[in-house]
Structures are given as C-alpha cells and as structure tokens.
C-alpha cells in the first residue's frame, strides 16, 4: 500500500465527483469512500463492491483504493469482513476448509488438494520488528 498518508493521497483530488457518479454503492442510495472524496462526512469506507471503477475514471489519478484501505484501518469493520480476517489468520483461508473439501472434490472427479500446512500462516504473517508489513 502507498506509504503516503490520506492527506497526501488526496492532494490531486479536485472533488469533481466522477468517482461518485460511477459508484454502484452510491447508485444504490448509500455512501461510499467516493462521498468522503467529495467532502461528505456521511459515508463508510467499508461500503464498496471492490469494482475499482472509481479509481479507473478519476481524471487526476487519485489512488482511491489506497485511501479506502487507510480509512478502513481507522473504522470499525463490518462482521463479514472481520470474520474473513479471523478465518485467514487462523487457517490461511477466508472460508472454513476441512476434509469435506476433498470429499466434495472426489465426488466431482477433481484431484484432492493439499491445504496450507499447519504453522505456515503464523510464520508468514508474524509481526516483524522494524518491518513495514506489520499492520
């Protein structure tokens, strides 16, 4: 993610509103990060369909996704996102994976898969002193 803070990332935004115009969340009557970009206070950085259309249409090249990720880390997550996080930290997958996975695969004629070995997730995601990957 960008090393710049939100204020720096917002520098080139002219609040033209194009991002908000193409946002599916806004079209559904709710308020996303694009409302924040337009100077509104009523929005949630979590209300997003991850379609990236806002950033794609921005004439100024504002890194809207990076801004959204920074804002998310300051805002309370919805339970669905939090559950996925907990699951990834615990098992390496966003959804529950157990032996049933391979039973279903065999039923469908697919080869069984080898899941991530125990202990790997902790090794990959452990906080490292002085590192930039610690959240």
């Amino acid at each position: 993610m960008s090393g710049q803070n939100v204020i720096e990332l917002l520098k080139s935004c002219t609040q033209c509103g194009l991002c908000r115009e193409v946002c599916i969340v806004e079209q559904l009557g709710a308020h996303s990060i694009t409302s924040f970009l337009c100077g509104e206070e009523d929005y949630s950085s979590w209300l997003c369909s991850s379609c990236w259309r806002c950033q794609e249409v921005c004439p100024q090249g504002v890194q809207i996704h990076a801004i959204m990720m920074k804002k998310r880390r300051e805002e309370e997550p919805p339970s669905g996102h939090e559950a996925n996080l907990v699951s990834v930290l615990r098992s390496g997958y966003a959804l529950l994976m157990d032996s049933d996975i391979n039973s279903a695969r065999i039923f469908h004629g697919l080869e069984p898969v080898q899941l991530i070995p125990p202990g790997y997730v902790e090794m990959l995601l452990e906080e490292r002193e002085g590192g930039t990957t610690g959240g």
Partner: protein
Amino acid sequence: MTKMALFPGCLVLQRMPQYEKAAIRVLGELGIQLENMPGAACCGAPLESFSDRWLSLAAYNVSLAERLGLDIVTLCGNCTSTLLRAKAALVDPDLRLEANEPLEKLGLRFEGSATVKHLVEILTENLDELAQKVTGELPWRVAVTHPCQAYRPHEIALFDDPLQPKAMSRIVKATGAEVVHYDAEFDCCGSTLYLANERLGLEAGRRKLASAGRADVLVDACGNCQLLLERFRGLMPDGGGADGIVVLTLPQLLGLAMNIGADELGVGPATARALAKKAA
C-alpha cells in the same frame, strides 16, 4: 500440452468445484493442463483492509507456482487483482526482502517470474482453438457479466478495455451464441458489497439479473459473481427479478458448446432441464 498452475481461491475451492471442474475440462480441450498448487492459501485480499501483511500471503502463493515452474491461472477477479498488485508492489526491493524472509524458512522464494492471468485472458489467447472445438451453435441468447478486477486497475491488469471489457462477449460469440447486451452489463455484481451490507449486495445483484432478463443465460467468470448471482439468488426479494434466466460460469457454457456432457461440467440436472426448455 501446456501446463499451468491453477489458483482457485477460497470461494471456488470451498463452494464451487463445479466451476473449477468445467475450467479444467475446457482448458484441457484447448491443450492447457491445469495443475494443483499444493499448499496454496487465500490470495491475501481479506487481509488488505487490516494490514499490509496481505503481501506476504500473496507472495507465498506466487512462490509456490514459481517452485513448480508454472504460470498461474485464476478463476476470480479479486484473486487476480490481489496477486497482480502484490507482484507490482514487490518490485520494491525492501518489500521483496521482507516478503522473502519467512518464505526462505519454508524453502520458498518469491521471484516475481510467474505470470498471473485470469481464465478469461487465457481463453482470449486461445480463441481460434476454442472456435475449432465448438461442435454446434448454442441455441440461447447469452448475457455476460464481467469479472471487474480482471480488468482493473488497468495499469496492473493490462488486459482489455478496463471500463467496457469485450473479451467475454468475444469468447461467447466464438460459440456461435447470440450475445445480448443490457444496461447493467458493466456494473459490479455486488458480491463483495454483500460482506459489508447484505441488503445492498443483494439489491445490486437483483438489478443486474433484472437488467439481463431478456437473455436466456447469464454467464459469469468469477466465484464472487457466481456466488451472488446464482447461489444467493433465492435470498433476493423477487428471486432475482428475471424468471428463469439460467446463470452459468463461462467454462460451463463453453463446455456445452463443445458437446461435453453437463455432468462433466458440473451443470446439475435441474439447470440442464432449464437450459433444454430454453432451447425448445
């Protein structure tokens, strides 16, 4: 036979063996053999909202393919973008060093050499072979929904028109089927939005299905799209606003055009009956 590493992602791995099965079968017909990636984990996307450590998980997955000496095929837009954006971020020598530190303890190394391509891109590269394998024109009017993050951000995806992609329509046209365009064609399905707000996610999907209602079949090429538009359709207030439109994954449709049996493509008997009725 070209070999590639298949990265199914959590959603397809856990809930959609049918999509994976059809993708393996259809790419096999085109001379591309998909290999499992033993030990592959989540792409890293769910971590990104909380921590920069998502890069470590993405680097791990890419390094597994590199150990096999294979390039990666993805089935979800989100996994595609996550792995590609991680590869782009890990060009930075400090970030790469940091990502490789735990990988080396596991006997792995992220080099950034494996390419990551979504299924739609692979099919686009093999369009002539695909057309040759089609045995007869499909009798349905087909609408397509695009895996947003296989095209965006464009500077990372480097594939197709980022706002109005055409690849999926071209692929469906190669089967001889009629492609039906609709107002909400380029709108997102709403699947990720469902995670934050179920009502809004389902409403996005309902609008999409209602808009595509003139078609017989709606095809997607992403676990997220298939989840919301097909599996969650019953949760929508009016069952998706499009009575009887059949939702298939792209390789399932292509397999049918190659005269591969519905059961070999993970197309269930009820769906096969609905398709037969549409053709009548």
